[in-house]
Each structure stands twice: as C-alpha cells, then as structure tokens.
C-alpha cells in the first residue's frame, strides 16, 4: 500500500501573519513557517494505516525552499520519504495551479491513497483535495473523521451538520481528514535521528513537464486587489465580579438592546 500525504508549509498562525506589499501574496519570508497543523492529522493517519498493514508513506509538498521543513517534520514523525516540488515560477500560485503541480507529481509517484489535511491554515480554502481528485479522475472523500481500508476499498465516516455519513469508494482515492480524526504524535528522539537518513527528492516544474506559464501569480484565476488589517477592537469595559456580575452583565446587554 503506497500512501502519499500532501503537506503544506505555512506561516505560523500564532505569529503576525501578513501580506507582501509588492504583489499582495502571503508573506512567507517575514514569518516563521511550519508544517500546517491540520496536515499533521493526515500524516498521523497515513502512519497508522501503514503500521496496521504494510505500507509506505511518502510526503509531498510544493513550496519555496524552506518548505522542506514540512517534509522533515513528517519524516521525523515516521514517514518514509519525501518529495519537494520547488521552482521560482510557482510563487503566487492559486489552488488551481497548486493542484496542477501536485497532480503532476502524483502521476510520477505510485499511490493507492492520497491523504490531505482538511484545509491549509494560511489560505483555509479547503479546495485542493477535491481539485486533485478531479484532475486525477479518482474519488474524493473529504472531511473524514474516521478512515478504514479494506482490500481495494476505502470507507470513511463524515460528521456533517445535518448527518453522520458513511461513504465508500474504490482505491485509489483522495481522502482529506479533519482534526477530529486522531491525535498526531510528536517526533521521538529516535524518529528525529532516523529522519536525517531518509530520502528527499527535489523536483522542478521541468521534471514534471509542467509549463511555467501555467502556474504562479500571472496564471492565477483570482487576484487579491487590496488587503487591510482589521482595526483593533476598541477596548471595552472589564469588571470584576463582586457578587452582582450577572446583573451588571444584563445591564450592559439591556443598554445594547439585547434584552
């Protein structure tokens, strides 16, 4: 069983994320990056499936040079090898181009199962998994909270607003997982040491036969025309409960016409 996990390197959500003034793209240089937390769940699920049977886990990322850290962290967790697609022409790519490049890379890899996070923590679009499936012509089972493999079939449980669903599809398939699915492991000391020897390949667009004109900012189907930091909320009133905190709260709500 060959599992490929698509992982993204993103600016740390707890830092002050911002945009590049020159082209309105996400600033990936000014803020420390890390493996998108939501992709850790996909890596963990891949490792569990591989450990339960006999599987090999490859992590695939597309991004500038530092994105290799996302691969490194996944290898430390236990993934077997990594593929990093890196090319200057990729800067500014939208989800359409990202899925084009990742699909081209997947075609060069062997896969029975492609695992993704539910969304990247920077763009939070949650589009790439469905787009990958559309490009590869295989099923997409998104927002899984439980995954099981039975021979050449995958079954997932989805927990939607209106219902809990069980969905079945033949492999190969793309599955995206939510943060409800598992508890990602921390790399062990052994894992950190072992990761140093694991193979990581770097591919360019030329290796994938993807033309540079199909990706990057100029090829994007959308453009951010302006961005503005949300003005800080004006500081409100904070009181200490001296026994009548509940009543004071209602006084405030009544003054605002909520009561």
């Amino acid at each position, binding site marked *: 069983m060959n599992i490929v996990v698509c992982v993204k390197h993103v600016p740390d*959500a707890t830092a002050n994320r911002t945009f590049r003034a020159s082209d309105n793209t996400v600033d990936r240089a000014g803020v420390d990056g890390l493996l998108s937390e939501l992709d850790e769940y996909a890596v963990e699920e891949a490792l569990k499936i591989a450990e339960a049977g006999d599987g090999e886990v490859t992590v695939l990322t597309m991004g500038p040079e530092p994105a290799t850290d996302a691969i490194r962290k996944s290898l430390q967790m236990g993934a077997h090898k990594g593929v990093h697609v890196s090319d200057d022409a990729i800067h500014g790519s939208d989800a359409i181009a990202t899925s084009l490049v990742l699909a081209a890379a997947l075609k060069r890899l062997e896969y029975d199962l492609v695992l993704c996070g539910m969304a990247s923590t920077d763009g939070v679009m949650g589009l790439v998994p469905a787009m990958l499936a559309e490009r590869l012509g295989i099923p997409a089972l998104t927002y899984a909270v439980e995954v099981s493999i039975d021979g050449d079939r995958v079954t997932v449980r989805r927990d939607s607003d209106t219902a809990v*669903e069980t969905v079945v599809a033949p492999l190969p398939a793309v599955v995206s997982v939510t943060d409800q699915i598992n508890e990602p492991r921390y790399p062990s000391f052994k894992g950190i040491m072992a990761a140093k020897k694991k193979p990581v390949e770097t591919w360019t667009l030329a290796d994938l036969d993807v033309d540079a004109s199909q990706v990057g900012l100029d090829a994007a189907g959308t453009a951010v025309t302006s961005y503005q930091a949300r003005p800080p909320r004006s500081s409100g009133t904070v009181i200490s409960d001296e026994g009548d905190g509940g009543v004071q*709260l209602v006084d405030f709500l009544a003054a605002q016409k909520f009561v």
Partner: protein
Amino acid sequence: MSEILVLVDHDDGAVRKTTTELLTIARRLGEPSAVYVGAGAEAARETLQAYGAAKVYVADSPDMDEYLVAPKVEVLAQLMASASPAAVLIPSTPEGKDIAGRLAIRTDSGVITDAVDARPGGGEGLETTQSVFAGGYTVEARVTRGTPIVTVKPNSATPEQAEGAAQVESVSVTIPDSARATRITDRQPRTKSGRPELTEAAIVVSGGRGTGGDFAPVEAFADSLGAAVGASRAAVDSGWYPHAFQVGQTGKTVSPQLYVAAGISGAIQHRAGMQTSKTIVAVNKDSDSPIFDLVDFGVVGDLHKILPQATEEITRRKG
C-alpha cells in the same frame, strides 16, 4: 441582464436561509437563477420566487442522494456551459467547497471561497470581500479567469424579498459511472436542538473548558436570550458538546450581533471563528485571558455564579 447561478441549499424542500442570502447578493450582480438539485423543488419554489429567482433549474432523479457532490457538480457544469452565467454562487459549506473546487477545474475558472460580500467589479466582473488570517485581515479580490465561482459564508447578507418569475426548467443529469463508484452507504440525520442554527443566529453563547463539563448554565443563559449555543474545541474534545457546535478555525465561523464566550481563553484558533462578531462579551475567572482583549464587556469571575444570576435577572426583567 446577466444570469447568476445560485446553488440552493435545502433540506428536502425546506430552503435554508443561506439560499435567500445568496439570492439577495445575486440580485446585485445580475438576474438570479436558482439551481435546485434533489427532491422537493415544488415546495421550495415559493421561497425561491419570493427572493427573486427568475428561473428555477430543477434536477432530480431517485438515486441522487446516494452520491456525494457528483450530481451537483454535473448539473452546475452543464448549466455553466448552456447558460453562460456571469457568476456562480455556492454556500460556503464543506460540500459547497468540494463542488466549487471541482467546477473550477472543469471550467478553468477562478474560485473564491468564504466571501462575505460580492458586488459588481466596475466593468471587470465581480469583486469580493473575505476575512483572512483568523479574522486579522480583510481582503478584496477579483476573479480574473473564466466564470467567477464564489462560495459565500452564511450571514453575509440580510435576505430581502423581491418577486421573481421563478420559471421552472428541468435539467436532466447523468452521473458518470466513475462518480457512481463513490457511494453514501449510511446516513444518520442529526437530532435538532430546537435552538437557532449556530451560523445563522443573531446571538451565540459559547462555553469552553471553564464549564468543567456542565453546559447547563450556558444553555439556560442562551435560552433566556433566544441564542444558539456554541463550544470551544477543548469542550468538544472533552466530549462535553457535539462537534457540530464547535466555533473556530476547524469548526463554524460565526458573526452574530452578540457573542458571549464563557470559560473560553480566546486562543487564535477560537478567535478565527468569532472575532468578526459585532459585540463580544466574555465571562472568565482569569483576568489575563486573551479573550478580554476582544471584548466590549467582560466579567472576571466564576461562570457558574455569573451566568445563572444573569439568566435569573433576564427572566425577572421580562416579567
């Protein structure tokens, strides 16, 4: 006038409020056509008409419910080719995003997710507004290629009535064999809480780890205000409240008139789901909690004392 496709979100004929919001936004862009997939279109037509749908495309076949997004993708792709709409509006739900992603690849069109507004772009298609980086930034964007596909968040517009012709056109849909391979084999509907929908409510009262697992004071306070109940991930992970009620990055984004956070610290991932609320109130026993940086009004103290007192006071004032 240019045609705008609006994918109808419905529960067996009961049109959800998000749809009337989308129809309202669509009218600012052109002439809305509702796209209804599944059973129950007859019952839905009246609402779609009242909110200005000029056309109602209806696609229904008996086995449609067994597949994930495939029927909706097929219908929309077919209509995008035959009707050449100026834009396609889809509700910003997990399903809506899957549909939008697949359509964007099929039609080589730019896609924008989680818009809170869409308006004519001054001669150049449409312009949208989104909130990004956990609500830290507001961006404006445009689609520069193909037919704009936009997923719109709930509560982005106040639904306004305007009579439309609601001319029904049936659309036949063939689900390709490849898509038939993916099947829903079981579906257990959720029991309804009887409270307002979390993403649609004017008031939301959420509880966190500070409830210690007892949501009764949170629910009672919510009910006294006619509010929806939400929860932090810590409360959901502890099994105290169902995941469908989680507010935050990996739960729901809410933007109500009033948001009350009780026993919630205000982590960035939680703020991502509520910081665009109009008025924010917090009850927390730790005055250093980051949630107090966001509040219009905060009470430092024990929620198990403060919420019941407030509930009682509201009941008393209502007389």
